[in-house]
């Protein structure tokens, strides 16, 4: 059962996600999570997980609010069907457009929770048989998918290598030798992961905005699309007409949800890939209606969320950038994902499932409707004020983790690196994955090779290891196929970061 505090954390996380989606559509969901990490690590594991689930599930689906209001997608996933959902909002009403995406998100979320429960329990059972050799291949799976998630393979490889190199600072995990510490005791513990995230995402966002003083950055206030009719009309459009449209398009919805679940299960391929593929399948129909494309995109995008958590919980391998950040939070809270989690902290696992269920069934419809009310009433907060608040939160957050002022030196260093990466069209996902998975990869490879006196064939000798190596090869082929397919139909996103 979820305690009152955990329920409150879930609600507050969901409300934060809602406000992010409606008031600050230009702020990436990952950044909004990174900014509250310094608060979350003060909570219990169950409360922190509930808050993150509330935030991530709501932030992703309310990302459509920006598309509905001003044709600005709040997330890369909603960019896949921005034109269509905006057209629906203009032609019918914002309430109907958001009702469509909320219904798709709610039902798609339920389908993906079913897969989360079955998938993570099943994979965790198999993972009990893993030694360091099998773990190596599992980590390689995360590495491969992280690299393929980047705009270009070379950029993915460089980003991952950079993140992993940053992760080697400090005491070597296998031999206990200090590396790249320059005899500074502060660096012995390595680069603090959450401070690195704050610098890479938060500071770089502010520096990036400073370098591009466009009207959208410097205080543009954009009025939202207005609702037609009163509260009764909003209720009818949102709770009756939108679900009826989903029912009429149930096969399209089901197909899009299954695409989302399947893509969510693959490490590294997240909600944006699923949204693009689902929306494009809908566009392939003869004379597709904008409602159909928007519905397919929203269902595909929101069905991946729980799927992304399956490799994270069962194997400790993040499904996308968001779950990589969540994995960092797990580490800070002392939670070790993987089979041991299902044995030693089964209560926590069930609380996570329950939080997902409540978030899908209760919070999404209610907060979705609240989003409609807000969308039709509130003007967005000017972006320069928002980014000022981001700067403040970065300073407070970087200090609050260890209460060490020296951590603040990482802000300009890694902030500038993040700024350069963004300016160069790199995504930060591979860098974050390098920071998270790098030490894991190094530890598992070192342990395997030390046990075998440096014999590389040890990585293929065990049958389970050989199967996992083949799965990695299959993953590479599948991601190459997805990449090609996406490249054919996906226009440039303009460097938008998940």
């Amino acid at each position, binding site marked *: 059962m979820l305690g009152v505090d955990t329920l409150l954390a879930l609600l507050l996380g969901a409300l934060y996600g809602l406000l992010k989606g409606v008031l600050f559509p230009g702020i990436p969901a990952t950044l909004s999570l990174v900014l509250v990490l310094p608060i979350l690590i003060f909570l219990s594991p169950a409360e922190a997980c509930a808050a993150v689930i509330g935030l991530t599930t709501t932030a992703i689906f309310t990302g459509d609010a920006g598309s509905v209001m001003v044709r600005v997608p709040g997330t890369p996933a909603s960019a896949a069907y921005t034109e269509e959902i905006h057209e629906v909002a203009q032609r019918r009403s914002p309430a109907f457009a958001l009702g469509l995406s909320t219904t798709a998100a709610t039902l798609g979320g339920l389908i993906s929770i079913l897969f989360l429960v079955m998938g993570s329990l099943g994979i965790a059972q198999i993972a009990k048989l893993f030694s360091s050799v099998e773990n190596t291949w599992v980590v390689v799976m995360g590495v491969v998918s992280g690299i393929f998630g980047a705009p270009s393979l070379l950029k993915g490889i460089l980003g991952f290598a950079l993140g992993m190199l940053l992760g080697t600072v400090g005491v070597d995990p296998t031999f206990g*030798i200090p590396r790249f510490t320059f005899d500074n005791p502060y660096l012995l513990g390595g680069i603090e992961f959450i401070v690195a995230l704050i610098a890479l995402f938060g500071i770089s966002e502010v520096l990036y905005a400073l370098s591009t003083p466009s009207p959208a950055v410097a205080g543009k206030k954009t009025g939202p699309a207005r609702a037609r009719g009163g509260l009764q009309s909003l209720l009818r459009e949102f709770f009756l007409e939108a679900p009826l449209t989903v029912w009429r398009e149930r096969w399209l919805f089901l197909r899009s949800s299954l695409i989302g679940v399947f893509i969510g299960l693959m490490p590294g391929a997240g909600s944006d890939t699923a949204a693009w593929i689902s929306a494009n399948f809908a566009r392939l129909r003869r004379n597709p209606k904008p409602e159909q494309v928007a519905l397919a995109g929203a269902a595909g995008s929101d069905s991946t969320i729980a799927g992304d958590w399956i490799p994270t919980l069962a194997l400790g391998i993040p499904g996308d950038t968001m779950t990589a950040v969540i994995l960092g939070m797990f580490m800070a809270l002392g939670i070790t994902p993987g089979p041991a989690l299902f044995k030693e902290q089964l209560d926590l696992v069930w609380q996570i499932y329950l939080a997902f269920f409540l978030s899908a069934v209760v919070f999404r419809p209610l907060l979705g409707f609240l989003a409609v009310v807000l969308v039709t009433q509130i003007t967005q907060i000017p972006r320069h004020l928002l*980014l000022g608040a981001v700067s403040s939160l970065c300073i407070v957050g970087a*200090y609050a983790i260890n209460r060490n002022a020296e951590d603040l030196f990482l802000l300009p260093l890694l902030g500038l690196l993040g700024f350069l990466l963004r300016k160069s069209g790199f995504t930060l996902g591979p860098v974050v994955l390098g920071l998270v998975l790098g030490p894991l990869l190094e530890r598992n490879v070192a342990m395997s090779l030390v046990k075998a006196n440096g014999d590389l064939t040890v990585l293929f000798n065990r049958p389970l290891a050989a199967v996992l190596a083949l799965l990695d090869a299959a993953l590479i082929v599948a991601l190459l196929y997805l990449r090609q397919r996406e490249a054919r139909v996906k226009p440039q996103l303009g460097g938008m970061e998940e």
Partner: protein
Amino acid sequence: MQQQHAWEAALALVLLFLGLSAWFLSGSLPSGQGPIGPAFFPRILAGILILGSTTHLFSLWQQGGLLLGRAREAPLRAFWRVGALWGALWLAPWLLPKLGLVPTAVLYGMLSAALLRGRWSEVLLLGLVLGVLLYLIFAELLKVS
């Protein structure tokens, strides 16, 4: 596109520098058992960074986007603002013990908003709201001293 090439060239040079530094610094690390030791992964990663950034620089050079002057897609004063905030961030570790956590954070929030060309009235209001919120959340609720 050429503007992005210039940024990519600058980043590739940074990555090349990091790769070369890591390569030479890892040379001084003690060797371990067989091929595996503390320098094993840093050497591989340094090699990837050196090779990858060199390849990237070469392809950018072939496309003719290496001229740094082409990176000026924004007025020069925009880059002064980036430099001003970036320079100010280096002062944060010294300011924090002297001013305290919340005033330091509020100061940076107001500075960022002002550099983003916010009106003074808005910046002052932001400072006030941030001050109250950060004090309540971090000082009172989470007891971060």
